[in-house]
């Protein structure tokens, strides 16, 4: 790998949660735990997982909207883990974000010119230069530059997400964090935005950290994918390896649970009982052992190492790649009373 644009090492974030009104009992919620990965320039890394897995917190840590409890973040050769807000200002040019909801993330009282131009005016661009650059990025994302003096409500959901992307692009960043950037859109519009992101990545050599719960979307956009569960990366592999030959039982259960829009792909589901445990009291040992169909006693006591399985392939499991039961095999014992 060439020099990494982003390098995250043992990144951890804990939140203190008040358990009583008086704050007497305090507990910690472990949102992100010992997460490590590198991203090459021009790469798309997908982060996938279910609610509460820590994927959004991870994105916010990298954006430095949250301060990590432990570990380090290096961006473009510089350690940015403990930069102050003032020191981060310069980096805001290089790291941008696109949020999920194109309705609540755009200020309804501003014109599109002001919304897209805001980061530019923060960095002291002249009014003429701002108008020129706003028109330019609007064209890149497929919006008519002559609509820049309208308010967001004049635009459809898909067009608003284009505005959000134009705003992220305005400063010509190196890295864009996309947090569920297409999740609120109808599928026909989602496809437009995914195609647009692919085009601008090619055109500008952008690096994308793409956070989503949707495995189809993640597979489509990503070169490599990290699967998160209860704050940990349980598996990280290329898109092809992860989907064609998943090693971690959670990855396999997750992929098998996706309902495919194809009646010939009736899923052979890996049975997965129960629900995600609370991150306030994560189970000891492997965080997945409470739901894992192949868990052994060891899994309940020892946390597996995050180890290199093969070049560029990481997994955190004592028994990676082991055969799993399918739903059909266990269906008899699941019949309802």
């Amino acid at each position, binding site marked *: 790998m060439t020099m990494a644009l982003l390098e995250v090492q043992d990144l951890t974030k804990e939140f203190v949660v008040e358990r009583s009104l008086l704050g007497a009992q305090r507990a910690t919620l472990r949102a992100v735990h010992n997460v490590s990965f590198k991203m090459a320039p021009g790469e798309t890394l997908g982060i996938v997982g279910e609610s509460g897995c820590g994927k959004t917190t991870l994105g916010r840590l990298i954006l430095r909207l949250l301060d990590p409890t432990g570990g380090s973040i290096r961006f473009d050769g510089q350690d940015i883990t403990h930069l102050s807000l003032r020191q981060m200002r310069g980096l805001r040019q290089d790291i941008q974000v696109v949020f999920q909801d194109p309705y609540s993330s755009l200020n309804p009282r501003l014109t599109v010119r002001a919304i897209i131009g805001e980061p530019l005016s923060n960095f002291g661009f002249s009014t003429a230069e701002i108008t020129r650059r706003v028109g330019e990025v609007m064209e890149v994302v497929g919006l008519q530059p002559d609509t820049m003096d309208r308010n967001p409500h004049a635009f459809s959901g898909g067009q608003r997400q284009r505005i959000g992307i134009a705003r992220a692009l305005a400063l010509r960043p190196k890295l864009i964090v996309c947090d569920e950037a297409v999740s609120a859109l109808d599928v*026909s519009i989602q496809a437009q935005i995914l195609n647009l992101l692919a085009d601008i990545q090619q055109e500008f050599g952008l690096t994308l950290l793409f956070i989503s719960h949707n495995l189809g979307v993640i597979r489509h*956009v990503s070169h490599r994918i990290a699967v998160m569960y209860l704050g940990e990366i349980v598996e990280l592999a290329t898109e092809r390896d992860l989907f064609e030959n998943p090693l971690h039982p959670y990855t396999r259960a*997750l*992929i098998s649970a996706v309902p*495919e829009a194809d009646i010939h792909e009736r899923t052979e589901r890996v049975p997965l009982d129960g629900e995600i445990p609370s991150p306030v009291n994560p189970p000891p040992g492997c965080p997945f052992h409470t739901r894992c169909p192949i868990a052994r006693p060891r899994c309940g006591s020892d946390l597996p190492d995050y180890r290199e399985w093969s070049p560029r392939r990481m997994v955190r499991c004592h028994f990676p790649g082991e055969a799993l039961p399918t739903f059909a095999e266990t269906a008899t014992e699941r019949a309802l009373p």
Partner: protein
Amino acid sequence: MSVREPLLQVDGLTVEFATLRHRLKVLEDVSLTVHPGEIVGLVGESGSGKSVTAMSVMGLLPDIAGVASGSIGFDGTELTGLSRKAMREMRGRDMAMIFQEPMTSLNPVHTVSFQIGEVLVEHFGASPAQAHAKAVELMAAVGIPDAARRALDYPHQLSGGMRQRVMIAMAMACQPKLLLADEPTTALDVTIQAQILDLMRSLRDQFNMAILMITHDLGVIAQMAERVVVMYAGQVVEEGTAAQIFDRPAHPYTRLLIRSIPSARHKSARLDAIPGSTPSAHAFPQGCRFHPRCPEAVDRCRTETQALHGLPEGRSSRCWRSLEALQDTVAAS
């Protein structure tokens, strides 16, 4: 197609919303049938009218809305024009509905046991103790572990997946003939979604309960439905068996919609996006409502109103070129 009587028959349903300045036709000429024990998928994007269709069947349209024409037949009874009281009777006993966000349909100040049992007290004259016992039984049947203890929980103490199970237990309490499920798994994680879909399928098998599954997710439809109704801009654009709809879609909208979904089973280089965006009821296009976004549109599509019409093998479509398109796919295969 069998000759058995449909359980639900919606015919030419047109629903208008009266706003200060306009009368908006949000549904126009919607027809669909659900047979006993059948799972029918009603699919469409936002603004297509799928939820308004479900609300019309349930008699839960907001006050500003009204059925302008058409009929809704359910189990031999005409529902349009039924009194509120008669409609409430029907809802408690013969049909039930579950929603996307169970938290908004559960009462936060009552235990889940009370809420599941309420319908039994209300419609079947059960005593509170009988209702509680039945509630615990239903909770166990929908896969809630430790049901006796969880029965005394309040909704906020349960996870999203458990709340949806409680909603299903409530719906099952009266053993309805028809369950309307409006985006029942959209707010859930994918592994929990799979559990809930399995549960719905097994309840259908056990009780021969029909399900009208309303969702934007074609994946859920492909895995669940036997027949599919596709809606766009307040109209049904296509109807057929799941095999017909997914393998040989007759309407260009259905065809493009299926192709625009990124698959988790294989990597797609580029998605076939549908240009433009879905129209709102304020401005449904003239002619075929899909023509501004349709790559195959010609002059006739822009000017001529299209009607849903029958095609071979019992399916139907609102595109006048569907017959031609289907013959082409047969010729090509």
